């Protein structure tokens, strides 16, 4: 600043004060920096909450897991030992039933959204979003009303069943599968479909042999994400699958599930059951993590450019 010639009426100190940011401007910059810091703190809180939950489950649960956890069933209350075999097998069975119900409807519905663009199809898409936000416990009541109660009336002595739990979870899967399928199918170049149709293929043939194979990875992603979503569902199972102290694989009887185990054991007064609940939480989180990571992997291997 020394080589600039000041106007004769201004002294050096006055120029300096003019070049310095005014008090107002400094305040504005400080405020901006502060609020930026606050936003960083807010993000830190979210990350801290996640780490707190994950680390607690990991540290508490790792010590509680042993071979018995996977091979033993529950023991009478108050006794030591016992495992989560029934719950693990039950959860896998429930997820299979849910897939049989939810996947065909979800995938076909996604293809429908790709093939049609009418006011009606847009309304249906809106309702798919609405269905996605129905609380899972309400979907559980639905399965209870259309499966558990009619069965109890027709066959006295029977009520809760693995099938009822699978219906509840299957319905919960539909919107996720439908939306991801549609979104991924939209990425398939329209030219590919046109080429197939121009060669004389029918529409269903085009979908089956051209569109679906091209989008295979993406559809698998949708399926895995939907499975990850329902794996931890507990509320709808309380009055459908119900839980079972005995080992069960038949669909017409009550069945145990991992989330039900976690709930029952965590709220019990016994210390060893608390450890078992933590072990169950680790296994459940591991299942969900594997499904989520696999879904990312499936998307990466997507053939669509």
């Amino acid at each position: 600043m020394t080589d600039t010639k000041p106007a004769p009426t201004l002294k050096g100190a006055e120029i300096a004060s003019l070049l310095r940011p005014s008090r107002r401007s400094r305040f504005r910059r400080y405020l901006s920096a502060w609020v930026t810091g606050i936003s960083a703190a807010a993000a830190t809180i979210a990350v801290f909450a996640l780490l707190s939950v994950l680390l607690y489950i990991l540290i508490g649960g790792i010590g509680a897991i042993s071979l018995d956890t996977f091979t033993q069933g529950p023991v009478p209350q108050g006794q030591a030992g016992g495992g989560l075999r029934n719950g693990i097998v039950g959860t896998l069975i429930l997820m299979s039933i849910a897939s049989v119900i939810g996947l065909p409807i979800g995938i076909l519905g996604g293809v429908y959204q790709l093939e049609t663009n009418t006011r009606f199809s847009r309304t249906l898409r809106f309702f798919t979003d609405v269905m996605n936000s129905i609380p899972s416990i309400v979907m559980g009541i639905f399965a209870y009303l259309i499966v558990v109660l009619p069965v109890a009336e027709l066959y006295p002595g029977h009520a809760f069943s693995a099938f009822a739990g699978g219906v509840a979870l299957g319905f919960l899967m539909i919107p996720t599968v439908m939306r991801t399928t549609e979104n991924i199918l939209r990425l398939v170049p329209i030219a590919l479909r046109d080429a197939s149709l121009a060669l004389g293929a029918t529409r269903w043939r085009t979908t089956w042999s051209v569109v679906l194979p091209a989008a295979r990875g993406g559809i698998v992603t949708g399926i895995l994400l939907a499975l990850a979503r329902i794996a931890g569902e507990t509320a709808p199972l309380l009055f459908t699958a119900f839980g079972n102290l005995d080992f069960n694989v038949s669909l017409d009887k009550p069945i145990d599930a991992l989330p039900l185990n976690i709930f029952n054991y965590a709220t019990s007064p016994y210390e060893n059951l608390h450890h078992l609940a933590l072990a169950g939480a680790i296994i459940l989180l591991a299942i969900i993590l594997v499904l989520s990571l696999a879904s990312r992997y499936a998307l990466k291997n997507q053939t669509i450019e």
Partner: protein
Amino acid sequence: MAEPSTTLGLELHDASSRGLAASLHLPKQIGDRIYKGVLTAAAISVLLIIIGLLLELVLGSRQSFAAFGLKFFSDSDWDPNGNKFGALPFILGTLYSSFWSLVLALPISIFAAIFLSEVAPRWLERPISFMVELLAGIPSVVYGLWGLFVLQPWLVKHVEGPISSSALSHLPIFGDTPNGYDMLAASVILAIMILPYITAVSRDILRAIPRSVREASYALGATKWETIKGVVLPYARAGIIGAVILGFGRALGETMAVTMVIGNAPIFKLSLFQSGYTLASVIANELSEASGLYRSALIEIGLCLFIVTLLVNIGAKLLIYYTAQDINAVGRKG
């Protein structure tokens, strides 16, 4: 397009040649008709499930409605043994815990969204976004487990204890002796659970705002915060309100984590240190053993929960949808 020349074996199935193709290639047209029918049936099943759900809930709650009428919603007596059912404590408990969860989660999630969208460099933004998504993927029952063994003891020791031994305990919301199984624990855990949803949706909305809008503000000499406050947030306001309502809807229907920490007492008090009950929790705890009028009352509670979450979510979706349309429209113009 030229006439379909069947001699070359070409078969056209476009709309333009539908009439001719229909007569020439009947079998394939039937295949496509079946195809369309199956697809439509799958898509419509969503509508059928929602309508069926509503119908079943209404039918199931007939008995309760006949017995109590509208008093069901204003009566606070819940006595399964005496066959007296009033849902008021559950309705208030649900609204109260969801309200406080929103008060806690709202500032954090909006500032976190601002951080992810406006402030953080890319190398920091991606892992934090990933973590927020992980937070959303943890099942409710695992949050409940954590709430029961980590959050609750911590709250009793470091929050509820100090407050109830200070002058603040004269306020109605901090009255009563804390026991841990209370509204506060439920609200905090709900806040943690809805935080990732509000953050993720708000972040996406902020990101959709065209860059030129921000650059115009910077060019006028505004600081980062002035740009966010004066340009970015007003632009995204309706969408962020939608995201918040979406989080509120999620809090209303959240079941397991709340059930594990709220204390499950069919009473409602203003104090955050008092046990309570919510619509979803009472269904989770009691439906599997209920029958007759008791069951019908619980199903009516389910109907109530369904309708409230439906209205809240449709409102939020419409807000977000129209904001996205606005942003797109301006983005195209710019």
